[in-house]
Protein backbone atom coordinates (compact mmCIF):
# COMPACT_ATOMS: atom_id res chain seq x y z
CA UNK A 1 0.00 0.00 0.00
CA UNK A 2 2.74 2.43 0.97
CA UNK A 3 4.77 1.64 -2.12
CA UNK A 4 1.95 2.51 -4.47
CA UNK A 5 1.46 5.99 -3.09
CA UNK A 6 5.12 6.89 -2.54
CA UNK A 7 5.72 8.27 -6.04
CA UNK A 8 2.66 10.45 -5.69
CA UNK A 9 3.97 11.97 -2.47
CA UNK A 10 7.38 12.42 -3.99
CA UNK A 11 5.82 14.29 -6.85
CA UNK A 12 3.76 16.67 -4.74
CA UNK A 13 6.21 19.58 -4.81
CA UNK A 14 6.63 19.11 -8.55
CA UNK A 15 2.88 19.06 -9.07
CA UNK A 16 2.63 22.19 -6.98
CA UNK A 17 5.06 23.95 -9.25
CA UNK A 18 3.23 22.79 -12.35
CA UNK A 19 0.08 24.03 -10.74
CA UNK A 20 1.57 27.49 -10.34
CA UNK A 21 2.56 27.61 -14.00
CA UNK A 22 -0.86 26.48 -15.09
CA UNK A 23 -2.46 29.10 -12.87
CA UNK A 24 -0.30 31.76 -14.47
CA UNK A 25 -1.16 30.58 -17.96
CA UNK A 26 -4.77 30.38 -16.96
CA UNK A 27 -4.67 33.94 -15.69
CA UNK A 28 -3.17 35.17 -18.92
CA UNK A 29 -5.77 33.42 -21.01
CA UNK A 30 -8.71 34.40 -18.87
CA UNK A 31 -7.65 38.02 -18.61
CA UNK A 32 -6.92 38.21 -22.31
CA UNK A 33 -10.43 37.05 -22.95
CA UNK A 34 -11.65 40.02 -20.99
CA UNK A 35 -12.53 38.44 -17.67
CA UNK A 36 -11.14 40.66 -14.90
CA UNK A 37 -13.81 40.94 -12.20
CA UNK A 38 -11.61 43.23 -10.13
CA UNK A 39 -11.85 45.81 -12.87
CA UNK A 40 -15.48 45.15 -13.53
CA UNK A 41 -14.93 43.20 -16.72
CA UNK A 42 -16.91 40.01 -16.79
CA UNK A 43 -17.71 39.25 -20.37
CA UNK A 44 -15.56 36.70 -22.21
CA UNK A 45 -14.69 38.00 -25.61
CA UNK A 46 -12.14 37.73 -28.34
CA UNK A 47 -12.37 41.47 -28.92
CA UNK A 48 -9.06 42.23 -27.30
CA UNK A 49 -7.26 39.87 -29.63
CA UNK A 50 -8.99 41.51 -32.57
CA UNK A 51 -8.04 44.89 -31.16
CA UNK A 52 -4.35 44.25 -30.88
CA UNK A 53 -4.08 42.79 -34.35
CA UNK A 54 -5.48 46.05 -35.63
CA UNK A 55 -2.84 48.00 -33.77
CA UNK A 56 0.23 49.11 -35.64
CA UNK A 57 2.48 48.92 -32.60
CA UNK A 58 1.47 45.33 -31.82
CA UNK A 59 1.85 44.02 -35.36
CA UNK A 60 5.29 45.55 -35.79
CA UNK A 61 6.29 44.33 -32.32
CA UNK A 62 5.21 40.83 -33.31
CA UNK A 63 7.27 41.00 -36.47
CA UNK A 64 10.26 42.30 -34.57
CA UNK A 65 10.09 39.50 -32.01
CA UNK A 66 9.61 36.80 -34.63
CA UNK A 67 12.54 38.11 -36.59
CA UNK A 68 14.64 38.30 -33.46
CA UNK A 69 13.74 34.79 -32.34
CA UNK A 70 14.23 33.12 -35.71
CA UNK A 71 17.53 34.78 -36.47
CA UNK A 72 19.10 34.42 -33.04
CA UNK A 73 17.97 30.81 -32.55
CA UNK A 74 19.08 29.72 -36.02
CA UNK A 75 22.43 31.49 -35.96
CA UNK A 76 23.13 30.40 -32.40
CA UNK A 77 22.41 26.77 -33.32
CA UNK A 78 24.61 26.85 -36.40
CA UNK A 79 27.47 28.55 -34.57
CA UNK A 80 27.02 26.42 -31.47
CA UNK A 81 27.20 23.21 -33.48
CA UNK A 82 30.33 24.43 -35.25
CA UNK A 83 31.94 25.30 -31.90
CA UNK A 84 30.97 21.91 -30.47
CA UNK A 85 32.41 20.19 -33.54
CA UNK A 86 35.62 22.18 -33.16
CA UNK A 87 35.84 21.10 -29.54
CA UNK A 88 35.30 17.46 -30.44
CA UNK A 89 37.72 17.57 -33.34
CA UNK A 90 40.47 19.24 -31.36
CA UNK A 91 39.76 16.96 -28.37
CA UNK A 92 39.20 19.96 -26.14
CA UNK A 93 35.87 18.77 -24.80
CA UNK A 94 37.02 19.39 -21.25
CA UNK A 95 39.23 21.68 -19.23
CA UNK A 96 40.19 25.29 -19.67
CA UNK A 97 38.69 26.01 -23.07
CA UNK A 98 35.34 24.62 -22.04
CA UNK A 99 35.34 26.71 -18.85
CA UNK A 100 35.77 29.89 -20.86
CA UNK A 101 33.00 28.85 -23.21
CA UNK A 102 30.75 28.38 -20.22
CA UNK A 103 31.24 31.98 -19.09
CA UNK A 104 28.54 33.47 -21.33
CA UNK A 105 26.05 31.03 -19.86
CA UNK A 106 26.77 32.51 -16.44
CA UNK A 107 26.37 36.07 -17.65
CA UNK A 108 22.97 37.72 -17.23
CA UNK A 109 21.42 39.50 -20.18
CA UNK A 110 21.89 42.94 -18.75
CA UNK A 111 25.64 42.43 -18.53
CA UNK A 112 25.67 41.04 -22.06
CA UNK A 113 23.98 44.24 -23.15
CA UNK A 114 26.81 46.24 -21.58
CA UNK A 115 29.35 44.02 -23.34
CA UNK A 116 27.69 44.65 -26.67
CA UNK A 117 27.53 48.41 -26.17
CA UNK A 118 31.22 48.48 -25.34
CA UNK A 119 32.09 46.23 -28.26
CA UNK A 120 29.72 47.15 -31.07
CA UNK A 121 28.70 50.68 -30.29
CA UNK A 122 29.71 53.41 -32.67
CA UNK A 123 32.31 54.51 -30.14
CA UNK A 124 32.96 50.95 -29.06
CA UNK A 125 36.06 48.79 -29.26
CA UNK A 126 35.49 47.50 -32.78
CA UNK A 127 35.01 51.02 -34.07
CA UNK A 128 38.18 52.17 -32.33
CA UNK A 129 40.13 49.26 -33.78
CA UNK A 130 38.86 50.13 -37.26
CA UNK A 131 39.98 53.70 -36.67
CA UNK A 132 43.48 52.60 -35.61
CA UNK A 133 43.68 50.45 -38.71
CA UNK A 134 42.73 53.47 -40.78
CA UNK A 135 39.54 51.91 -42.12
CA UNK A 136 37.36 54.75 -40.85
CA UNK A 137 38.10 58.37 -40.00
CA UNK A 138 35.21 59.14 -37.70
CA UNK A 139 32.94 57.09 -35.49
CA UNK A 140 29.90 58.02 -37.54
CA UNK A 141 31.40 55.97 -40.35
CA UNK A 142 31.13 52.81 -38.25
CA UNK A 143 27.87 51.00 -39.06
CA UNK A 144 25.08 51.44 -36.55
CA UNK A 145 24.51 48.00 -35.10
CA UNK A 146 22.66 48.86 -31.92
CA UNK A 147 19.23 50.34 -31.40
CA UNK A 148 18.31 49.63 -35.04
CA UNK A 149 14.93 48.63 -36.37
CA UNK A 150 16.55 45.48 -37.71
CA UNK A 151 17.52 44.54 -34.13
CA UNK A 152 21.01 43.53 -35.29
CA UNK A 153 22.56 44.45 -31.96
CA UNK A 154 20.04 42.41 -30.03
CA UNK A 155 20.57 39.41 -32.30
CA UNK A 156 24.33 39.62 -31.86
CA UNK A 157 23.87 39.93 -28.11
CA UNK A 158 21.74 36.78 -28.03
CA UNK A 159 24.34 35.09 -30.21
CA UNK A 160 27.12 35.93 -27.79
CA UNK A 161 25.30 34.27 -24.96
CA UNK A 162 23.45 31.48 -26.75
CA UNK A 163 25.99 30.04 -29.19
CA UNK A 164 28.13 28.85 -26.27
CA UNK A 165 24.95 27.53 -24.65
CA UNK A 166 24.17 25.43 -27.72
CA UNK A 167 27.76 24.24 -27.87
CA UNK A 168 27.59 23.13 -24.26
CA UNK A 169 24.11 21.64 -24.67
CA UNK A 170 24.91 19.48 -27.70
CA UNK A 171 28.52 18.68 -26.85
CA UNK A 172 28.06 15.42 -24.96
CA UNK A 173 25.67 13.98 -27.52
CA UNK A 174 27.58 15.22 -30.52
CA UNK A 175 30.90 13.86 -29.31
CA UNK A 176 29.29 10.51 -28.54
CA UNK A 177 27.98 10.21 -32.10
CA UNK A 178 31.10 11.61 -33.68
CA UNK A 179 33.49 9.33 -31.82
CA UNK A 180 31.62 6.20 -32.75
CA UNK A 181 29.49 6.51 -35.86
CA UNK A 182 31.30 9.49 -37.34
CA UNK A 183 34.58 7.63 -36.93
CA UNK A 184 33.09 4.54 -38.55
CA UNK A 185 31.97 6.63 -41.52
CA UNK A 186 35.46 8.04 -41.99
CA UNK A 187 36.87 4.56 -41.68
CA UNK A 188 34.65 3.52 -44.58
CA UNK A 189 36.00 6.25 -46.80
CA UNK A 190 34.02 9.37 -45.92
CA UNK A 191 36.01 12.59 -45.61
CA UNK A 192 35.54 14.30 -42.21
CA UNK A 193 33.19 16.81 -43.84
CA UNK A 194 31.01 14.16 -45.47
CA UNK A 195 31.02 12.08 -42.30
CA UNK A 196 29.75 15.10 -40.42
CA UNK A 197 26.97 15.96 -42.84
CA UNK A 198 25.88 12.42 -43.66
CA UNK A 199 26.12 10.81 -40.25
CA UNK A 200 26.93 13.01 -37.24
CA UNK A 201 24.64 15.93 -38.05
CA UNK A 202 21.49 13.98 -39.02
CA UNK A 203 21.77 11.89 -35.89
CA UNK A 204 22.27 14.97 -33.71
CA UNK A 205 19.24 16.76 -35.05
CA UNK A 206 16.97 15.89 -32.11
CA UNK A 207 19.33 17.53 -29.63
CA UNK A 208 19.95 20.51 -31.89
CA UNK A 209 16.23 20.84 -32.47
CA UNK A 210 15.62 20.94 -28.73
CA UNK A 211 18.23 23.67 -28.34
CA UNK A 212 16.59 25.61 -31.17
CA UNK A 213 13.21 25.33 -29.51
CA UNK A 214 14.49 26.53 -26.15
CA UNK A 215 16.35 29.44 -27.72
CA UNK A 216 13.48 30.46 -29.95
CA UNK A 217 11.04 30.71 -27.08
CA UNK A 218 13.66 32.40 -24.95
CA UNK A 219 14.42 35.06 -27.55
CA UNK A 220 10.80 35.48 -28.51
CA UNK A 221 9.77 36.14 -24.93
CA UNK A 222 12.94 37.93 -23.82
CA UNK A 223 12.77 41.34 -22.22
CA UNK A 224 16.14 42.67 -21.05
CA UNK A 225 18.08 42.57 -24.31
CA UNK A 226 15.48 44.15 -26.58
CA UNK A 227 14.90 46.76 -23.88
CA UNK A 228 18.54 47.71 -23.59
CA UNK A 229 19.75 47.19 -27.15
CA UNK A 230 16.67 47.31 -29.31
CA UNK A 231 15.23 50.23 -31.20
CA UNK A 232 12.91 52.69 -29.54
CA UNK A 233 10.44 51.93 -32.27
CA UNK A 234 9.35 49.32 -33.10
CA UNK A 235 9.70 47.53 -29.76
CA UNK A 236 9.90 43.82 -29.18
CA UNK A 237 6.65 42.17 -28.23
CA UNK A 238 7.39 41.42 -24.55
CA UNK A 239 8.56 45.00 -24.06
CA UNK A 240 5.35 46.22 -25.69
CA UNK A 241 3.28 43.86 -23.59
CA UNK A 242 4.90 45.06 -20.39
CA UNK A 243 4.31 48.68 -21.32
CA UNK A 244 0.64 47.97 -21.91
CA UNK A 245 0.52 45.99 -18.68
CA UNK A 246 1.91 48.90 -16.68
CA UNK A 247 -0.42 51.47 -18.20
CA UNK A 248 -2.27 53.46 -15.55
CA UNK A 249 -5.47 52.89 -17.52
CA UNK A 250 -6.36 49.45 -16.21
CA UNK A 251 -8.71 48.85 -19.08
CA UNK A 252 -5.64 48.32 -21.18
CA UNK A 253 -4.87 45.22 -19.12
CA UNK A 254 -6.79 42.71 -21.28
CA UNK A 255 -4.99 43.98 -24.35
CA UNK A 256 -1.67 43.49 -22.61
CA UNK A 257 -2.71 39.96 -21.68
CA UNK A 258 -3.82 39.33 -25.23
CA UNK A 259 -0.28 40.14 -26.33
CA UNK A 260 1.02 37.67 -23.76
CA UNK A 261 -1.51 35.20 -25.11
CA UNK A 262 -0.08 35.59 -28.57
CA UNK A 263 3.44 35.03 -27.23
CA UNK A 264 2.21 31.89 -25.49
CA UNK A 265 0.42 30.64 -28.57
CA UNK A 266 3.51 31.03 -30.69
CA UNK A 267 5.73 29.36 -28.09
CA UNK A 268 3.38 26.44 -27.81
CA UNK A 269 3.02 26.29 -31.57
CA UNK A 270 6.79 26.07 -31.93
CA UNK A 271 6.89 23.31 -29.31
CA UNK A 272 4.25 21.33 -31.14
CA UNK A 273 6.14 21.73 -34.41
CA UNK A 274 9.24 20.42 -32.63
CA UNK A 275 7.42 17.39 -31.27
CA UNK A 276 5.90 16.58 -34.61
CA UNK A 277 9.31 16.86 -36.26
CA UNK A 278 10.91 14.65 -33.63
CA UNK A 279 8.17 12.06 -34.01
CA UNK A 280 8.69 11.91 -37.77
CA UNK A 281 12.45 11.73 -37.25
CA UNK A 282 12.20 8.94 -34.71
CA UNK A 283 10.27 6.85 -37.19
CA UNK A 284 13.01 7.29 -39.72
CA UNK A 285 15.81 6.47 -37.37
CA UNK A 286 14.29 3.73 -35.30
CA UNK A 287 16.25 4.53 -32.18
CA UNK A 288 19.86 5.13 -31.34
CA UNK A 289 21.65 3.14 -28.70
Amino acid sequence: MKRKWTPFFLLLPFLGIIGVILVSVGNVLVQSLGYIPAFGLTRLTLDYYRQIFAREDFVSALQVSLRLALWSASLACVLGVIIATALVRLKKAGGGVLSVIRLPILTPHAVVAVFMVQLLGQTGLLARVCYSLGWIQDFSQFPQLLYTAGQEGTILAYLWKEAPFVAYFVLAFLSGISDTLGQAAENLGASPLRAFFLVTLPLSLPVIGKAFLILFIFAFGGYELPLLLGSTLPKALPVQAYLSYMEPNLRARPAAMAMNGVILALSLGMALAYWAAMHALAKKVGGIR
Partner: protein
Amino acid sequence: MKGNFLFKFLLALVLLLILVPAGQILLWSVAERWPWPGLLPESYSLRTVKELLFGSAKLPGLLGSSITLALTVGVLGTVVGLLTARATQLYDFPGKELVSFGAFLPLLVPGTVFAMGIQITLIRLGLSDTVAGVVLVHLIAAIPYCITILTDVTRAVGSSLEQQAMVLGASPLRAFLHGSLPSLMPGILSSVSMGFILSYSQYFTTLMAGGGRVKTLALVLVPYIQSGDRALASIYCVAFVGSALLVFFLFEGILHTVSERSRGK
Protein backbone atom coordinates in the same frame (compact mmCIF):
# COMPACT_ATOMS: atom_id res chain seq x y z
CA MET B 1 44.55 17.56 -40.30
CA LYS B 2 44.31 20.67 -42.43
CA GLY B 3 40.75 21.36 -41.36
CA ASN B 4 41.97 21.48 -37.78
CA PHE B 5 43.68 24.78 -38.39
CA LEU B 6 40.34 26.36 -39.27
CA PHE B 7 38.83 24.96 -36.09
CA LYS B 8 41.74 26.19 -33.99
CA PHE B 9 41.31 29.64 -35.49
CA LEU B 10 37.58 29.57 -34.82
CA LEU B 11 38.01 28.51 -31.21
CA ALA B 12 40.65 31.17 -30.67
CA LEU B 13 38.23 33.74 -32.09
CA VAL B 14 35.44 32.53 -29.85
CA LEU B 15 37.67 32.65 -26.78
CA LEU B 16 38.74 36.15 -27.75
CA LEU B 17 35.17 37.30 -28.21
CA ILE B 18 34.30 35.98 -24.78
CA LEU B 19 37.29 37.30 -22.88
CA VAL B 20 37.75 40.70 -24.52
CA PRO B 21 34.42 42.17 -23.39
CA ALA B 22 35.18 40.90 -19.89
CA GLY B 23 38.46 42.75 -19.99
CA GLN B 24 36.71 45.78 -21.35
CA ILE B 25 34.29 46.21 -18.49
CA LEU B 26 37.19 45.90 -16.07
CA LEU B 27 38.84 48.81 -17.82
CA TRP B 28 35.66 50.81 -18.13
CA SER B 29 34.89 50.46 -14.46
CA VAL B 30 38.06 52.26 -13.45
CA ALA B 31 38.25 54.66 -16.35
CA GLU B 32 37.80 58.32 -15.64
CA ARG B 33 38.17 59.59 -19.14
CA TRP B 34 38.19 57.36 -22.20
CA PRO B 35 37.29 59.45 -25.18
CA TRP B 36 37.16 58.40 -28.80
CA PRO B 37 39.29 57.05 -30.39
CA GLY B 38 41.70 55.84 -27.72
CA LEU B 39 42.19 52.10 -27.34
CA LEU B 40 42.95 52.55 -23.66
CA PRO B 41 41.53 54.98 -21.10
CA GLU B 42 43.12 58.38 -20.81
CA SER B 43 42.87 58.52 -17.05
CA TYR B 44 41.78 56.24 -14.28
CA SER B 45 39.92 56.82 -11.06
CA LEU B 46 38.51 54.85 -8.22
CA ARG B 47 35.33 56.89 -8.09
CA THR B 48 33.15 54.01 -9.11
CA VAL B 49 34.78 51.64 -6.68
CA LYS B 50 34.06 54.08 -3.85
CA GLU B 51 30.49 54.48 -5.08
CA LEU B 52 30.12 50.73 -5.27
CA LEU B 53 31.37 50.00 -1.80
CA PHE B 54 30.06 53.02 0.08
CA GLY B 55 27.37 54.38 -2.18
CA SER B 56 23.61 54.25 -2.04
CA ALA B 57 23.34 50.72 -3.36
CA LYS B 58 24.79 49.31 -0.10
CA LEU B 59 26.66 46.60 -1.89
CA PRO B 60 27.63 44.25 0.94
CA GLY B 61 24.06 43.94 2.14
CA LEU B 62 22.74 43.70 -1.39
CA LEU B 63 25.29 41.08 -2.28
CA GLY B 64 24.50 39.05 0.79
CA SER B 65 20.75 39.07 0.26
CA SER B 66 21.04 38.35 -3.47
CA ILE B 67 23.34 35.41 -2.92
CA THR B 68 21.16 34.05 -0.12
CA LEU B 69 18.06 34.29 -2.26
CA ALA B 70 19.72 32.62 -5.20
CA LEU B 71 21.15 29.85 -3.03
CA THR B 72 17.73 29.25 -1.53
CA VAL B 73 16.31 28.83 -5.01
CA GLY B 74 19.16 26.48 -5.88
CA VAL B 75 18.62 24.33 -2.83
CA LEU B 76 14.83 24.26 -3.11
CA GLY B 77 15.03 23.49 -6.81
CA THR B 78 17.40 20.63 -6.05
CA VAL B 79 15.13 19.21 -3.37
CA VAL B 80 12.14 19.27 -5.71
CA GLY B 81 14.30 17.89 -8.50
CA LEU B 82 15.57 15.03 -6.31
CA LEU B 83 12.11 14.02 -5.20
CA THR B 84 10.75 14.20 -8.72
CA ALA B 85 13.70 12.31 -10.17
CA ARG B 86 13.28 9.62 -7.55
CA ALA B 87 9.65 9.24 -8.44
CA THR B 88 10.24 8.90 -12.17
CA GLN B 89 13.41 6.83 -12.08
CA LEU B 90 12.82 4.43 -9.25
CA TYR B 91 9.11 3.83 -9.43
CA ASP B 92 6.58 2.78 -12.02
CA PHE B 93 3.26 4.52 -12.29
CA PRO B 94 0.83 5.55 -14.98
CA GLY B 95 1.48 8.91 -16.56
CA LYS B 96 5.23 8.87 -16.06
CA GLU B 97 5.83 10.46 -19.46
CA LEU B 98 3.65 13.39 -18.53
CA VAL B 99 6.13 14.25 -15.80
CA SER B 100 8.92 14.78 -18.29
CA PHE B 101 6.59 16.94 -20.34
CA GLY B 102 5.66 18.85 -17.23
CA ALA B 103 9.29 19.38 -16.36
CA PHE B 104 9.73 21.00 -19.74
CA LEU B 105 6.72 23.28 -19.27
CA PRO B 106 8.53 26.23 -17.66
CA LEU B 107 10.73 26.43 -20.71
CA LEU B 108 7.68 26.79 -22.93
CA VAL B 109 6.30 29.72 -20.99
CA PRO B 110 8.59 32.75 -21.31
CA GLY B 111 9.52 34.48 -18.09
CA THR B 112 7.75 37.71 -19.03
CA VAL B 113 4.45 35.99 -19.74
CA PHE B 114 4.71 33.88 -16.62
CA ALA B 115 5.53 36.85 -14.40
CA MET B 116 2.71 38.99 -15.74
CA GLY B 117 0.31 36.11 -15.42
CA ILE B 118 1.19 35.13 -11.87
CA GLN B 119 1.16 38.58 -10.39
CA ILE B 120 -2.56 38.62 -9.68
CA THR B 121 -2.27 35.27 -7.90
CA LEU B 122 0.67 36.48 -5.86
CA ILE B 123 -1.31 39.50 -4.81
CA ARG B 124 -4.23 37.31 -3.77
CA LEU B 125 -1.93 35.03 -1.78
CA GLY B 126 -0.23 38.01 -0.15
CA LEU B 127 3.07 37.01 -1.69
CA SER B 128 3.56 39.96 -3.99
CA ASP B 129 6.49 42.23 -3.17
CA THR B 130 7.90 39.57 -0.84
CA VAL B 131 11.06 37.54 -0.94
CA ALA B 132 9.00 34.35 -0.74
CA GLY B 133 7.14 35.32 -3.89
CA VAL B 134 10.37 36.04 -5.71
CA VAL B 135 11.83 32.71 -4.58
CA LEU B 136 8.74 30.91 -5.85
CA VAL B 137 8.89 32.61 -9.22
CA HIS B 138 12.62 31.95 -9.59
CA LEU B 139 12.02 28.34 -8.60
CA ILE B 140 9.73 27.91 -11.58
CA ALA B 141 12.50 29.02 -13.91
CA ALA B 142 15.09 26.75 -12.29
CA ILE B 143 13.02 23.57 -12.12
CA PRO B 144 13.55 22.23 -15.66
CA TYR B 145 17.32 22.36 -15.30
CA CYS B 146 17.39 20.89 -11.80
CA ILE B 147 15.07 18.06 -12.78
CA THR B 148 17.09 17.26 -15.89
CA ILE B 149 20.40 17.10 -14.02
CA LEU B 150 19.02 15.10 -11.12
CA THR B 151 17.07 12.69 -13.32
CA ASP B 152 20.24 11.72 -15.12
CA VAL B 153 22.17 11.20 -11.88
CA THR B 154 19.35 9.32 -10.16
CA ARG B 155 19.01 7.00 -13.10
CA ALA B 156 22.73 6.36 -13.15
CA VAL B 157 22.99 5.69 -9.44
CA GLY B 158 19.81 3.66 -9.24
CA SER B 159 18.54 2.08 -6.09
CA SER B 160 20.95 -0.85 -5.86
CA LEU B 161 23.06 0.70 -3.10
CA GLU B 162 19.97 1.48 -1.05
CA GLN B 163 18.61 -2.01 -1.50
CA GLN B 164 21.93 -3.37 -0.36
CA ALA B 165 21.88 -1.17 2.73
CA MET B 166 18.32 -2.12 3.61
CA VAL B 167 19.09 -5.79 3.23
CA LEU B 168 21.86 -5.23 5.77
CA GLY B 169 19.40 -3.70 8.20
CA ALA B 170 19.32 0.05 7.50
CA SER B 171 16.07 2.02 7.58
CA PRO B 172 14.98 3.48 4.21
CA LEU B 173 16.14 6.96 5.23
CA ARG B 174 19.57 5.80 6.39
CA ALA B 175 19.84 3.60 3.34
CA PHE B 176 19.35 6.64 1.19
CA LEU B 177 21.69 8.88 3.18
CA HIS B 178 24.54 6.41 3.36
CA GLY B 179 23.86 4.48 0.19
CA SER B 180 22.79 6.70 -2.65
CA LEU B 181 23.45 10.21 -1.40
CA PRO B 182 27.25 10.16 -1.68
CA SER B 183 27.00 9.02 -5.29
CA LEU B 184 24.36 11.64 -6.01
CA MET B 185 26.46 14.46 -4.60
CA PRO B 186 28.05 15.59 -7.87
CA GLY B 187 24.62 15.89 -9.49
CA ILE B 188 23.23 17.64 -6.44
CA LEU B 189 26.01 20.20 -6.40
CA SER B 190 25.63 20.72 -10.11
CA SER B 191 21.92 21.30 -9.71
CA VAL B 192 22.34 23.75 -6.83
CA SER B 193 24.90 25.78 -8.73
CA MET B 194 22.68 25.82 -11.84
CA GLY B 195 19.68 26.94 -9.81
CA PHE B 196 21.84 29.56 -8.16
CA ILE B 197 23.03 31.02 -11.45
CA LEU B 198 19.54 31.10 -12.89
CA SER B 199 18.06 32.85 -9.92
CA TYR B 200 20.98 35.21 -9.52
CA SER B 201 20.59 36.36 -13.14
CA GLN B 202 16.85 36.91 -13.07
CA TYR B 203 15.66 40.44 -13.79
CA PHE B 204 12.13 40.65 -15.07
CA THR B 205 10.67 38.06 -12.76
CA THR B 206 12.28 39.75 -9.76
CA LEU B 207 10.88 43.09 -10.93
CA MET B 208 7.36 41.75 -11.30
CA ALA B 209 7.15 39.51 -8.26
CA GLY B 210 9.18 41.75 -6.00
CA GLY B 211 7.56 44.95 -7.17
CA GLY B 212 10.85 46.76 -6.88
CA ARG B 213 10.80 46.22 -3.11
CA VAL B 214 12.85 43.03 -3.21
CA LYS B 215 16.23 44.18 -4.36
CA THR B 216 18.74 41.89 -5.97
CA LEU B 217 22.00 42.78 -7.65
CA ALA B 218 20.62 41.81 -11.06
CA LEU B 219 17.66 44.08 -10.53
CA VAL B 220 19.72 47.07 -9.43
CA LEU B 221 22.04 46.58 -12.39
CA VAL B 222 19.57 47.57 -15.11
CA PRO B 223 18.86 51.17 -14.02
CA TYR B 224 22.61 51.72 -13.72
CA ILE B 225 23.03 50.52 -17.28
CA GLN B 226 20.26 52.76 -18.49
CA SER B 227 21.74 55.71 -16.59
CA GLY B 228 24.45 56.31 -19.14
CA ASP B 229 27.23 56.41 -16.56
CA ARG B 230 29.32 53.81 -18.26
CA ALA B 231 31.92 53.49 -15.57
CA LEU B 232 29.36 52.94 -12.85
CA ALA B 233 27.42 50.46 -14.93
CA SER B 234 30.65 48.60 -15.62
CA ILE B 235 31.68 48.32 -12.03
CA TYR B 236 28.31 46.91 -11.11
CA CYS B 237 28.69 44.39 -13.91
CA VAL B 238 32.09 43.49 -12.53
CA ALA B 239 30.57 43.10 -9.06
CA PHE B 240 27.89 40.87 -10.46
CA VAL B 241 30.02 38.64 -12.63
CA GLY B 242 32.74 38.50 -10.00
CA SER B 243 30.39 37.39 -7.24
CA ALA B 244 28.63 34.90 -9.53
CA LEU B 245 31.94 33.37 -10.59
CA LEU B 246 33.14 33.18 -7.00
CA VAL B 247 30.12 31.24 -5.83
CA PHE B 248 30.19 29.11 -8.97
CA PHE B 249 33.84 28.20 -8.55
CA LEU B 250 33.23 27.49 -4.90
CA PHE B 251 30.70 24.89 -5.96
CA GLU B 252 33.05 23.50 -8.59
CA GLY B 253 35.71 23.22 -5.92
CA ILE B 254 33.43 21.36 -3.56
CA LEU B 255 32.27 19.18 -6.43
CA HIS B 256 35.85 18.36 -7.30
CA THR B 257 36.75 17.43 -3.72
CA VAL B 258 33.62 15.32 -3.36
CA SER B 259 34.26 13.46 -6.62
CA GLU B 260 37.87 12.86 -5.72
CA ARG B 261 36.92 11.51 -2.34
CA SER B 262 34.22 9.23 -3.70
CA ARG B 263 36.66 7.93 -6.27
CA GLY B 264 39.13 7.17 -3.50
CA LYS B 265 36.41 5.14 -1.78
